[in-house]
């Protein structure tokens, strides 16, 4: 049997009769983030190498610098008669309108569903029918009914956001602790005050989670919405660039869409921490 090897510290500890205290080291933030950084840098390097050595034609995969230059170019001089900002603005406006409309309709309906069994069972088949259908599948119908204007685009995004928001609000309201409702009633709350002071704040964490999911779905639907004869918008920009094989604009557009999605996700997470932190 080979002798057990001891480290210097252990030898010292043994000889002095005092065991070396085991120090707990918390995993540093850097250590946890390092793999992410490696993946990102690795991908960028691979991209650089593949395009730099001409493995793939720049028609299909332009170099990172080329995409960056193009990004600056479309931001200043524009692409398809509009600058990057105008495309972004058009897309954000459509999504914002859809989100606003969804918040104003889905949250009240969700509260009703959560409070009233009859409303819940009446609305349920409607939502369950269209919710699993991909927006692209009912897009043609929307075009037939509402034409190819802004209404159709906002409506498509709105429909995609509406269902998850109604369902999240409804389940949040159903989960409100009964003793809190009783407590508020015994303190003199009327029906409206119950909703305003107990039910809505109780359900807020679920509503925000629903909104986060809904925004993800809505942003994904955006590109589909902008396939309908749009003149502006990030989805339109990428779509028309692909038709002319302007790959650098396609990649730049995809990057911008991804960054905005990330910013939306992070802002809802911030709202969750700020206003629903009590639930976690």
């Amino acid at each position, binding site marked *: 049997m080979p002798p057990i090897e001891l480290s210097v510290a252990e030898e010292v500890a043994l000889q002095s009769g005092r065991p070396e205290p085991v120090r707990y080291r918390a995993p540093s933030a850097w250590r946890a983030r390092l793999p992410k950084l490696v993946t990102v840098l690795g991908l960028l390097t691979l991209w650089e190498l593949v395009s730099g050595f001409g493995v793939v034609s720049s028609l299909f995969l332009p170099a990172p610098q080329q995409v960056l230059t193009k990004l600056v170019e479309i931001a200043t001089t524009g692409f398809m008669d509009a600058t990057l900002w105008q495309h972004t603005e058009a897309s954000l406006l459509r999504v914002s309108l859809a989100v606003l409309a969804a918040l104003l309709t889905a949250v009240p309906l969700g509260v009703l569903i959560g409070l009233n069994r009859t409303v819940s069972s009446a609305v349920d088949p409607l939502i369950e029918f269209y919710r699993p259908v991909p927006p692209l599948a009912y897009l043609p119908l929307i075009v037939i009914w509402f034409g190819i204007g802004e209404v159709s685009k906002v409506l498509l995004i709105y429909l995609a956001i509406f269902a998850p928001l109604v369902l999240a609000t409804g389940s949040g309201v159903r989960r409100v602790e009964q003793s809190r409702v009783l407590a508020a009633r015994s*303190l003199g709350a009327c029906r409206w005050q119950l909703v305003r002071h107990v039910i809505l704040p109780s359900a807020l964490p679920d509503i925000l989670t629903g909104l986060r999911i809904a925004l993800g779905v809505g942003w994904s639907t955006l590109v589909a919405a902008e396939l309908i004869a749009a003149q502006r918008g990030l989805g339109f920009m990428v779509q028309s660039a692909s038709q002319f094989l302007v790959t650098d604009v396609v990649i730049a557009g995809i990057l911008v869409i991804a960054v905005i999605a990330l910013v939306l996700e992070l802002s809802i997470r911030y709202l969750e921490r700020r206003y629903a932190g009590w639930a976690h």
Partner: protein
Amino acid sequence: MARLSVDNVSVHYPTPRGVVHALDKVSLEIASGDVVVALGASGCGKSTLLGLMAGFQRPDAGRVTLDGATITGPGADRGVVFQDDALMPWLSAADNVAFGLTLQKVGRSERRERAEALMRQVGLAGFEDHRIGELSGGMRQRLGLARALANRPDFLLMDEPLGALDALTRERIQSLILDIWRGTGTGIFLITHSIEEALFLATELVILSPRPGRIVRRLQPGFARRYAAGESARSIKADPDFVRAREDILNAHFAYDEEIEHAAH
């Protein structure tokens, strides 16, 4: 002087295994200055009784009245303290205490002032801006008590308020309840499954039996008044009279089965 009466009240629930008689012809009266404690094992209808007084539910037979008028719903004249604190975790401690005042649209500065005074009264001065999640179980129950007191109710209805607390915290809050009672003269109805707690707090003690829920015994222990007169809680509970009363209740009503054990868990 306000009076809350439960008059010959019955409540039954239909279940798949037949009708359960939660309460069967129960009568009870609480006046200002009384501490009426309902003692019983689980399933004896204690909480149903409190729900009737609070106005959360209606009896199937009999009447529940407040100063002669039938109770038709909850009201700010009856403050309720729940076993699970039922606080609003998105509000600060002070805003929880002032919840009833917010509903009555009392102005912000007056709300704050009254919340601070109430929190001092329940021993929580300095915790006004704490979040509910940062407070211990005992502190939350104190807060629930302060919230119920904010409306200056004629009656405090407490549903096993100390059930989930550790022994030491329990003792402290028992004394706090009697301090508030002495200071305000509010009529108190309290539910417990602890014999000791019931004996210590009650000016009138009713013992309930389960299924059907009936009052099987009424006592008038004098220990709460001795505490109000200045005697310490510890010396009261160590008094041979107190110990004898406790053992007597235990042997007469709870020793024959393990029900009290079940209730405790």
